[in-house]
Every structure is written in C-alpha cells, then in structure tokens.
C-alpha cells in the first residue's frame, strides 16, 4: 500500500513536467503578449517590463528559470496583477472555489444517492420515472441557464436570497444549487444503475431468503456495492466541480480561482496561467489517487499493487 502510494506520487513528477512544458510553450505561441493593450505602451516602458519579468531573455533560458522556480512552487508575480504573486492568488481563490465545489458535491451526494436508491427500488414505477425525468433535466440544463433562472425567481422575484456576491451563508445557496444540479442528476442515475445491478445478484437473493428486512438488504448489503460507480465517478466529479465552477463563479460574482485561468489565458498572463494550470493538474492527480485508495477500501475485490 505504501509502496503503491509512493509509486503513484513519483509518477506525478513526469506528468506535471509534461503539462508544465506544454503549457509554457503553448502560451508563448499565442499571438501577442501580456503588455498589449488598447493604449500603446512606450517602447522604453515595454523594454523595462520585459526586463523586469525576464521576457527579454532567450526562450530556453526563460523555460529553465521557470522550471527551477516552479519546483520551489514560486511562479513569480502575476503580470496582470503585479501587486500579487501567483501563489497568493491561488491561496486566496482556491479556498473559495473549494468551498463552493465542496458544498455542491455534498448536495449532489446527499440528494443524488437517496434519489437513485428510491428509483432503483421502485424500478419502472411512477416515482422512478419522476426521479429519472428530473435527473435528465438536471443533466441537460446548463448552469448558465439554471443560474439566471434561479436568480430571477428566488432572488429578484421573491427577494429570498441575494442574487450574487460571496458574503454570508445565504449567498452560498444559489451558486451551490446551480453548480450541484447536474451532479445531483448524474449521481442519481449512477446510483440507480449500480443498485439495479447489485439487487439482481445472488447474495441479495440470499439475504432476502434469510428473511432480512428490505431496508437492511438495501442499505447494508446492496448499497455498499451499488455505490461503486458513484465512487469512481467521485474523483473526476470532485475535480470538475471544484475547477469547473467558472460559469457559476461568473454569474454569482464568486471570487474563486476558476475565472483567473480563463482571464489569464486571454490576457496572456503567463505566470498566472502556469501557476493555476499546474496547481489544478496536481490537484486532479491527487484526487484520482485518493479515489483509487477509497476504491480498495470499499470493494474488497480490488487490490492495490
């Protein structure tokens, strides 16, 4: 087990290096640079900026310097926000994205799993159809439609909740609902499929034959295996929900990390993009590792080598 984890962690290194290298050169291939603007910048000032950020050095040297600093988790100051280092931006933005994503994931599991279990248990009944119809809608309606609709009704119509900003518990409700909707739906579908498969297995028939109450059969025997599809989905889902909240952050003016990546790419903020991409990559790999570990714990048939 320890060796397994160590080996996986070692594999992070070449993967991160490849991602860093690719991003580094792709960013530089994009037309323009970080100091272009509608208003021109005088040549002397441009030269001073280039010198300050080392952009006047040969590309190979810039790359080497970047790698050396990256190993120390130092990505330098953001070009666009020169009073902040990239590390500060990540440390300030990520907890917000993580909180938003964490709540959304929790809602997705707390709502999705029971819905899926109910649907599976009552397969082909009206409640099954209803749950699955809602799930289909949840998956199909994108956040940039659902978000404004929720704002329009709950916030501007009924004045129950604030329409945006990240201040106080009430402000969490709409962004979390918007972000979690698709995941609730997906988790419900996965749970239902997993449960249906497990409920047809021999050991469940045995459990029922022994006269165990249905509640015990479903919740204690079937659920653990029935949730395996959800569990394997959890890694990518957690990553996507935490990193992919860009649209929700935009609609609700949430000061998370998601927007920096996109805006940074548009404004050619090389250091910011490099820092955020590498951070996300490492985060994603770590999540995947955790899911694999959890898988072994959940399913005795899986052995980590």
């Amino acid at each position, binding site marked *: 087990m320890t060796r397994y984890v160590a080996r996986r962690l070692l594999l992070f290194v070449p993967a991160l290096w490849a991602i860093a290298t690719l991003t580094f050169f792709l960013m530089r291939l994009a037309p323009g640079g970080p100091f272009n603007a509608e208003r021109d910048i005088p040549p002397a000032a441009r030269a001073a900026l280039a010198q300050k950020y080392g952009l006047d050095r040969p590309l190979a040297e810039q790359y080497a310097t970047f790698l050396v600093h990256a190993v120390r988790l130092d990505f330098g100051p953001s070009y666009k*926000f020169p009073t902040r280092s990239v590390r500060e931006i990540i440390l300030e933005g990520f907890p917000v994205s993580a909180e938003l994503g964490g709540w959304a994931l929790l809602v997705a599991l707390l709502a999705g799993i029971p819905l899926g279990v109910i649907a599976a248990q009552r397969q082909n009944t009206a409640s099954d159809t209803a749950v699955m119809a809602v799930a289909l809608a949840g998956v199909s309606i994108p956040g940039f439609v659902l978000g404004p609709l929720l704002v329009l009704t709950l916030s501007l119509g009924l004045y129950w909740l604030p329409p945006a900003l990240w201040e106080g518990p009430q402000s969490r409700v709409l962004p979390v609902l918007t972000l979690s909707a698709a995941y609730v739906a997906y988790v419900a579908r996965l749970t239902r499929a997993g449960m249906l498969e497990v409920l047809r297995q021999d050991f469940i028939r045995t459990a029922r034959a022994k006269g165990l109450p249905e509640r015990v059969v479903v919740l204690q025997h079937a659920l653990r295996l029935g949730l395996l599809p959800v569990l394997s989905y959890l890694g990518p889902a957690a990553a996507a929900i935490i990193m992919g909240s860009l649209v929700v952050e935009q609609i609700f*003016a949430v000061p998370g990390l998601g927007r920096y990546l996109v805006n940074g790419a548009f404004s050619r903020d090389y250091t910011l993009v490099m820092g955020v991409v590498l951070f996300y990559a490492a985060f994603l790999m770590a999540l995947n590792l955790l899911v694999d570990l959890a898988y072994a714990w959940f399913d005795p048939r899986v052995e980590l080598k």
Partner: protein
Amino acid sequence: MRRSAPWVVPALAAILAGCAPAHDEAVSAAVGGPRYFGSVRPPSGDVLRFNNGAEPETIDPALVSGQSDGRLARALFEGLATFDPRTLEPRPGQAARWETSADGLTWTFHLRPGLVWSDGVPLTARDFVWSWLRVLHPSTAARNAGLLHAIAGAEDFNRGTAPDPSRVGLSAPDDTTLIVRLASPVPYLLQLAAYPTWLPVPRHAVERWGERWTRPGHLVSNGAFVLERWRQNDRFELARNPRYRDAARVRLDRIVAYSVDDLSTSSNLYQSGRLDWNTSGYVPSPFVPWLRGKADFRSAPFQAVYFYSMNVTRRPFDDVRVRRALNLAVDRDAIAHDLLKGTRAPWGRLTPQGYPGYPAPPPLGHDPARAREVLAQAGYPGGRGFPRISILFSTSEDHRRIAEAVQAMWIRELGIPVELRNMEWGSTMQATTTLQYDVARRSWIGDFLDPGTFLGIMRGGDGNNRTGWSDPRYDRLLLAARNEPDPVERLRLLARAESLLLADGPVIPIYHYSTVELVKPYVRGIWSNALDSHPLEGVWIDHAWRPGMEGRATERRHGLVAERMVPLLGHRAVQAQRPPAPGAATERRHGLVAERMVPLLGHRAVQAQRPPMTAAATRP
C-alpha cells in the same frame, strides 16, 4: 476597465436578455409617478455601495489607465486640483492657489499648509516632484507617462535619453511651493493635474513596501478615503480619512466598491438593492430601451468614439480613393438607429462632441452613389477587380453585428468582396499593433476634454496609430497647435488637422459613446459628465428620501437633474451638434445635453484601458 472572460459575458447577457423585463412602460405610466429599477431602500449607514467593474490591475496612481482603477485612485488620493463633477471646472485640491507666468510656461502651485498623509507624515511639494519623476522613470513603465510630457524635459527623461532628473522642469523651493516649467503652453494643465497619473504617492510607503505598497495596511493616502480591505475579484472597502484636508465635509463613512465583471450580475445586484450605483459600462444593452423609462436611469454623452481603421500599408487601402469610397458607403445612421436602437449617436468625426471653441470640420457623410464613383476612379468600377478584404474585430456580440452591417453595406453599395474576421481580444490587439489586418474595429476614449487627445493618436509613428498612415502636413499642424500660445488659434489648427485626417485618413468613425448608469434616488452628488468621472468625496446618502416622495414632482426634479447635468459654465459649446434624432424623448434629452456640453477649455485625457472595447463598456 478590466476584462472578463469575453465569451461568458456575452453568453450571459444574451440569456438574461431573454429574461429582461417586458416592456411595461405603458403600465408604469398608467400607474403614474416615477418607477425605479428594483429596490429603493437606502443602506442603513452612510455607505456607498457600487460596482466598480472588472478587477483593476493596479490602484497605483502612476500605473492606472482605466475607469475602475482610476476611480479608486481618485477616491484615495488627491492631486493639486480636483474638478467640479457637474462642470468639470478645475477646483483647488491639495493646492490652494496657483499662478501662471505671462508666457504660460511656468506654473507655481501653492500647497495648503499642514497637509498630511493618512499616517500623519507631512505631505510637501517634494512629494509631488518625487511622484511625477517616478511616473516618468522608464523602469516604472507607466503606460500614461505621456500625460506628463507637457513638463519641460519630461519626455527625454521618460524615454531614457536624458537620465538626469534635475533636467526635468520640476522644483520645490519650499514645503508648500511647487514650480512646474512646461515645454510648451498647456491650456488644460489643471485638468491634467486632476488626472490619476498626476496624483501624489507616499514616498515613504513606496520605498518601504516596493510594488506591494498598494496593499491594505501598506497603502497611505492623502484623499478623502483610506483603503481598508481589498479582496481580489470581490471588493474594495474604503473608510473615511480623518486626516483629509477637508474631512469635515466628507459625508460618507465607507465605500464598498465591488469588482463584478458580469453586466447582468451587476444589474441584478442593483435591482435587488445591494448596489446603490451601477456604473457606466455595466448596464446590459438589451435592458437599455426598457430602463430608459426609469427615474434612476441616466445617460449622457461620453467622450469616446467607436471607429474602424484601415491598414494603409496594404493594397487597396494605400489608395485614398478606396478609403473615401469605403467611408462614403457606411450608413452610420442605420447602424445607430436601426441596429443599436438609438442607444448610440451616429458619428462622422474622430473627435467627439462638445469641445468649446473647437471649429469641428464637417462630419463624414453617407453617399453611396458618390462612393461608387470614387471607387470607379480608383480602378474598381462596380467593385470589379477589388481584392477580398476582411473586417477584424474582437469577440463581442455588438462588434459582430456592426461588422456584419458594414460588410453588407460594402457588398451592396460597392460590390466588393468582404469577409469578417473575429479573434479573441489579445490576438486582435497584436494584429492591429503589427498591422496584420485590412480593416479593424477600434475605439478611443479621451483622457481630458481636448480634441488633441484624439487627434494625437493618428500622428505618424504614434503607437496608437495602428494604420500605417502618416502625413507630414498633419504632423506639422499638430506640432504647431502644441506650440501655439493662443487657445483660439490652437483649436483652429487642430480642426485643420482633423479635416485633413477625415479627407485623407484611414479612419471610419461610426458612433459616439454615451454613459449609461443607474443611480438610486437616495444617492446624492453623482453627476453624469463627459469624462464619466465622479469624485466620491462629495457623494452622500439622503436618508430623508422616501419612496413616498415619488410622484410627479419628484419625477420632474429628476428630469431637471438630467438636463442640468451638463452645466453651463459660461461658455457654451460652440460647436453645433447634429440635430437630435427625431422621435424618442430620451433622444431629445441627449440632444440638449450635447449642445450644452461643457466647454471647458480643458482637456481630459483619454485613456482607456480597454474600455469600450468590450461590449461591457459604455453602452448607449
């Protein structure tokens, strides 16, 4: 203005447009009395909450170059002079008085005695000298350093060709006296002195904290407010500065400036009563026709022009007849009235309206028959043999619609092959800067109220020219204007330069910007002006205001305010503007404002970070 993810904003705007409140003007008129957009409950304390727009890149006065950063810099710092938000007339700021030498080249400013920074350190004339030299020093890389080139020796120092700061025309013989020697007479110097680039910065804090001196806790200021909190992509919180020279007259205890870059989100916050002021550029354009009927909606001409430029280093734009034909074939009225629903005024000049005393040349007009004639003379009768050309624009729904309209006009009227070329913002900048385009969408915002701030960009070799066009006669006229001591003659020289530019030039002006903002009825002291600049030290919350005060009277009062917003200083805008569009009452109001537009001899600088270029910026 800052930039947001360019694809998200239009996408959201488009969606919310669908949700925009239906036309219920008839209903509200029937109910009688003014209607406001959303909640009108004042905040409990003396707090102003507004959307400052996309996260500013910096709030260091030396480096600011846009609306959102400039607004904060001005709230935190005060220059030698400030200005009246209604008339834009200069008023004493940190300087109590000033005098000018007979030749207009030497200005002596007398600072108020006893000025201090917010940490109690005395503020002296030397702080101004140090701050301005800092802006000019090449290593500061200040985008707006050119605004200080009026000072003798400043340009060479800024370019690094004369590295001795003592050659720059600045001196501080004692703590309260500041002497500025100019390279040439600058009739608008006081306007410049109110511009963020000219604000003083605390040397002791800058030297101690380096680039991070603008962080809360480090930042020391001399304006009406101090910085308490700055959370990225979220908000700035400012508190009253008890050491401000005029602290007793500041009525706001706090300011919360949110950094919301999404237009719909911003308007939602305003509607729900969480913002007291939705600043210009953050009202979604699809809302405008509907919002116009609201009493808290304000619009006024804004000193900015939307135009196309042509790359004269490429065929066929090297032929002046081709450029003229393309210009004559553009129907600006159709774009402004039909496409943009009258939210913008059609415009046929590079300089905006309202410069007092400026004998503006006649605008470029629409004449398809003449366009075909000129094109035939250029060797392309009926468009035959004309090479395929493209219109370049950065990603924005409005830019696309306008480009499609111009494309259709050129194909229909001239029979030439035209295609559209859309790129994301950074790539568009690069393509225009390096002259890798045929026709490109551009815009320019004036820094100060003077035609020179627009005409200067088309000087040969200017970094903002981006057309490859240059004409020694044009450059000579601008130089002559710069050295002309007589203000009237100076403006005449500038007008001659503009006629030359319009006749020969590579620009196709399209529309004139307007500010569009929403201000809650209980907020006092915010006035629409051509610079979209709002000194916050005079703003206050009227807690006595009640929704019950609605009614005809209130409405009329608001109407008056709107008309008054451009005060007449004594000089009226000399320049006759185009007659207002027939129809809409609002349009007529615009017309009024336009004619009365403040004449200041001044000039304000232009700079726009990238303002109107996003759909975000000023809408109608």
